[in-house]
């Protein structure tokens, strides 16, 4: 399935809905949306991952980029990630740097 990333911003919360397959060839699209969100002054990034079927380390690198761009205190929510995507997030220790939720509920 083709990759898609769509951004919605609401005050200081940016929501990016990801679907399809996120690899090194599609990660630039995701990165561009994060950049747009940061430019708009977002302080919180909510990633809706229910329909994201695959994520390579290129996707993890965009999460590092997000923290660098939006500031270390910016919260990243990972919402509804599928089992294998979550497995990659856990294996690499990224679970300690993001807020993992089944359904989005702001803390």
């Amino acid at each position: 399935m083709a990759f898609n990333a769509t951004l919605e911003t609401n005050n200081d919360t940016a929501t990016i809905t990801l679907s399809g397959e996120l690899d090194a060839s599609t990660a630039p699209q995701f990165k561009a949306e994060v950049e747009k969100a940061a430019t708009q002054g977002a302080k919180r990034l909510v990633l809706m991952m229910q329909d994201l079927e695959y994520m390579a380390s290129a996707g993890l690198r965009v999460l590092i980029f997000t923290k660098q761009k939006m500031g270390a205190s910016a919260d990243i929510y990972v919402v509804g990630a599928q089992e294998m995507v979550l497995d990659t997030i856990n294996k690499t220790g990224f679970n300690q740097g993001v807020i993992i939720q089944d359904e989005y509920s702001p803390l």
Partner: protein
Amino acid sequence: MEPLTVPGTLDSLKPIAEYVMAAAAAAGLDKKASYNLRLAVDEIATNVIIHGYEEAGRDGNLVLQAEIDDRVLKFTVEDTATFFDATQKADPDDLDLPLEKRQIGGLGVYLAIKGVDKFLYERSGDRNRTIFIVNRFTS
């Protein structure tokens, strides 16, 4: 399976993934093992394409070959980039650090090695040969 030769560009990641998933299905791997093999091959192919070819200003292909026997799926990726032995890369030592302090590199190789039962490297003439072995039956 018939080998697959693709050009060393990021557009090849998709046909590579399709070939890996076809091999995983032919070997009867479960969902998790299939996903992890696809991730492993994808990460190594990405490294070869970006670092071995694009950044080095070299053109080259990737040759993929899946072989299935009674016990294992053996998956081989060959490239003509400069010598790179992923098995010599140390595991990232910053997996506990806050994200903003983490290194960008090294994660792909780490996921590749963790994703298969055996991960091997050989140099053959002017080629790097990375070999991924996945057990077909876990018992």
